[in-house]
């Protein structure tokens, strides 16, 4: 049996696998052409409204796919999915767009994705390479650059979506001060209240992940979204059942205690949380003394040790 299964128990793998299965199954269903329902997310209508407004005013739409951690990741990619929808609309009405990227890999991807959009809309001539920009990969230089841009360009709409940290409010307030419509969403729970305070429309929590499913209406996304719902429902159910079961168990008493991989009999005492069924499942306590002896590599396959005098 592997160390990792001793540490986390099979349960972790099982639960992860279950949720993965849920997601894949629903994607499969959706791909099968089954019409699946997803609820309207308030605030999404705002996207079209914002772009429309920008078109009337002939001012640019600014899009910021968040900070990201040095390289491109799923969150910024998700933001790009939403932005490709926005730029699709913008491309139709020839509304100028600016996408501000915080790292080079994201810039490379955005550059390609957005150009694809213009190409698909058959207006590649309208695409300006400088509308997708690398601002800075340094958090606050990025913030300074974006706010400067927003102020000078007098942006009519700002989309702040993805991984935002402290800079969230700098950008939101600046955009607000030039009277831009703002649609915002941060995967960082801690920033959401500030978006709520400063922006017109906010996508909370994983509404952000739901958004692109709703906009793009790709079967894959819709299916995955439903799979996620099943996952959430499943977790909620586990918590509920777990709570009831252990609450009842705690009323009783026990004469057994599970410790370091063994069940020991002990004098009767009231149940502790650690004795309950769920707690035991979730906290496997492997025997730390498991030993396995294997043969060793011959010394000549090891790098030559440094002479002693060099080591203090």
């Amino acid at each position: 049996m592997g160390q990792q299964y001793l540490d986390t128990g099979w349960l972790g793998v099982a639960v992860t696998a279950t949720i993965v299965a849920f997601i894949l199954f629903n994607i499969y269903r959706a791909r099968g052409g089954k019409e699946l329902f997803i609820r309207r997310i308030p605030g999404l209508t705002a996207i079209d409204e914002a772009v429309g407004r920008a078109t009337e005013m002939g001012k640019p739409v600014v899009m910021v796919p968040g900070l990201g951690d040095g390289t491109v990741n799923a969150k910024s990619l998700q933001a790009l999915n939403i932005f490709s929808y926005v730029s699709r609309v913008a491309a139709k009405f020839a509304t100028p767009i600016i996408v501000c990227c915080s790292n080079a890999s994201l810039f490379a991807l955005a550059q390609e994705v957005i150009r694809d959009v213009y190409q698909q809309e058959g207006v590649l001539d309208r695409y300006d390479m400088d509308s997708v920009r690398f601002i800075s990969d340094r958090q606050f230089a990025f913030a300074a650059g974006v706010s400067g841009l927003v102020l000078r360009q007098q942006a009519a709409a700002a989309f702040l979506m993805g991984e935002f940290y402290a800079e969230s409010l700098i950008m939101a307030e600046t955009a607000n001060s030039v009277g831009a419509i703002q649609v915002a969403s941060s995967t960082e729970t801690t920033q959401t209240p500030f978006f709520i305070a400063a922006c017109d429309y906010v996508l909370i929590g994983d509404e952000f992940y739901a958004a692109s499913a709703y906009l793009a209406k790709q079967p894959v996304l819709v299916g995955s979204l439903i799979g996620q719902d099943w996952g959430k429902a499943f977790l909620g159910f586990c918590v509920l059942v777990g709570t009831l079961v252990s609450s009842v168990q705690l009323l009783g008493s026990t004469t057994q205690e599970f410790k370091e991989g063994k069940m020991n009999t002990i004098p009767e005492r009231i149940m502790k949380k650690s004795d309950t069924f769920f707690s035991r499942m979730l906290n496997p306590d492997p025997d730390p003394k498991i030993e396995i002896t294997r043969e060793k590599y011959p010394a000549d396959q090891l790098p030559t040790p440094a002479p002693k005098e060099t080591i203090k």
Partner: protein
Amino acid sequence: MDYTFIKMTLGVLATVGLYSVLYRENKFYRFWEHVFLGLASGWALVILWTETLKSTWWDKMLGATNNSGQASVMGYWAYAALLPIGMMGYFVFSKKHNWISRIPIGIILGMYSGQQIQVWWNRFGPQIDNSIKPILPTSTASFFKPGTSGLAPDAVAKINSTVYPSQAITNIIFVVTLLSVMSYFLFSFDIKSKMLKNTTTLGRWLLMIGFGAIFGSTVMMRFTLLIDRMYFIWIEWFKMLVLRQPG
């Protein structure tokens, strides 16, 4: 005029310059903004080699020797493959081969997504465990948990291990909060059923309490950083450098 004075004064100027945008966008701000962006990108170029590629790529690829010139770390040749892979990214500007730039990105995203699957349980398992709370009182001796000050340790331990009605209620609120907030984020269920509708609304209210609390504790930090800036300007620069007084 010694070096420290110049350095600190420049820092103060830069600070004031950036602050000036609070009043309105102006040339002074624009100047410092561009200095900032220039320095940031330049610095990124510097640390690209000195802090990232040198230590995590070049040295690992060639291995290292300790002071006496003996091998102390083996070199891994596989790293060499990363250079051509990195170069593929530069095809993004090519009309014909831009798709190749998707390969390095694909690798980065692949590793990222693999780890999402790896770490999911590590992060949420313990939280699920902790969310399972006793909601039935194990003792009705008193409604509230008795105070423990001035009691013997074992008595304290006994009180702490008992679930009093008040705690049971608290725990119920906890579980209800968790579940109703989660229900708010169910997208595929049609909110026709009154029951679900109510829980989601409740969920949204409870969310707002959470956000309020977050706002509260964030304010502390933001103000602290401003205070620190003011400390830099008034105490470290003005008082200690300009007036030459002890802090």
